[in-house]
């Protein structure tokens, strides 16, 4: 009726004129999708968020996020990777860019687009052409020697998340060792320990994302 409802709840438009693209990578089962869901829940009240998932086999991750209703359905897009999840986030990012741009076109006010990679090995790294910032997710059950072994994701991600800390005593992983080994290869970049079971909102990671948005 001629009345516009374009109230902008934010302080300012994104500095780069488009939303921040946050890559979330890590091995299969480390909790990427659960972390993505947690971030959506934590941030959706204050930010305009959308998600692109890169499932390996199916649209299961996208379906999970839709079922959990962490975001409206039209803010979640699934990309198929032809059995090559690392290719889709690193060597040939076109399908992901396509999905991100389609989300931006559909939701012009987006602040944050999370691109969740398909579960991959420790060498996977997001291309800078796709992700402005990236998080690499490990879990303690994968063994406490993983940070020591390093790999591109562990060493180069802007934030390393060591997830499922509540399981550490059960699987015999030493969190102190993991933190120390990670610090060695990460050149001062931050490491966050999370247990989504104990703190479903992943407050530390959500805080890091807020900071990333402020300084981007």
């Amino acid at each position, binding site marked *: 009726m001629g009345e516009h409802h374009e109230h902008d709840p934010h302080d300012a438009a994104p500095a780069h004129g488009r939303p921040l693209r946050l890559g979330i990578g890590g091995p299969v089962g480390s909790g990427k999708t659960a972390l993505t869901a947690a971030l959506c829940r934590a941030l959706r009240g204050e930010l305009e968020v959308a998600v692109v998932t890169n499932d*390996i*086999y*199916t649209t299961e991750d996208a379906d999970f996020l839709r079922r959990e209703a962490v975001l409206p359905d039209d803010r979640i897009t699934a*990309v*198929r*990777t*032809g*059995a*090559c999840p690392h*290719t*889709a986030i690193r*060597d*040939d*990012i*076109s*399908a992901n*860019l*396509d999905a991100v741009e389609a989300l931006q076109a559909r939701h012009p006010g987006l602040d944050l687009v999370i691109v969740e990679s398909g579960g991959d090995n420790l060498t996977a790294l997001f291309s800078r052409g796709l992700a402005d910032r990236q998080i690499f997710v490990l879990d303690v059950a994968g063994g406490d020697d993983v940070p020591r072994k390093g790999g591109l994701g562990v060493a180069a991600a802007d934030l390393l998340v060591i997830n499922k800390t509540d399981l550490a005593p059960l699987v015999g992983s030493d969190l102190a060792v993991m933190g120390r080994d990670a610090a060695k290869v990460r050149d001062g970049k931050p490491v966050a320990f999370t247990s989504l079971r104990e703190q479903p909102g992943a407050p530390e990671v959500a805080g890091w994302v807020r900071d990333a948005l402020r300084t981007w």
Partner: protein
Amino acid sequence: MRASLLLLADSRLPAGGHAHSGGVEPAVSAGVIGDVPALADFLRGRLATSGLVAAALAAAACAHALEGGDAWALLDAEADARTPSPAQRKAARAQGRSLLRVARTTWPARALEALAVVSPDGPHHPLVLGAATASLGGTPHEAAAVTAYNAVTGGASAGVRLLGLDPLEVNRALAALAEDVDAVAAKAAACTDGPWTALPAASAPLLDIYAELHLRADLRLFES
């Protein structure tokens, strides 16, 4: 110019090709491809049908770009008319968008800008390939050759990934198809003499059926 053409034909070109199987995934799911000879048969049929059509469209697009033409919407409609499967039209336009992104960055040209506005879903892939070939200094025949080559290599790679086929065996099968690829490219290039309405329209009923079945499959690794 030769090196640029090789770059355009390279499977490492970041234009989204790795996520498309050219019908190989649904054919594997349907149980009709299980080994290298069956894969080679499949690719030969694909090359002779949708490969020929795509190569002819690419050659026509290259010739049109070289002439400085602007009838891109008309050529895009001719591509639509030769692609009855909505799933295949969607895949062709998705790959067209991705290739356009690469081409505009790498070999900017007026024809590529015109193609960018031809449809909100993006232009058909062979049109972009033809225009990009013109932009890097190539000929319609070369555009057809790259397209015909792509028509078999993408599916071959999907076969390796889906079935764990011996890549050396698959490569040998591709080499055995090389003569067919050349023949299709020559045939497609020869069509640039005639009107667009008469361009090849070879259809493959099973490719159409598989493309639609694929969208309904529970498990799929490839977009198409």
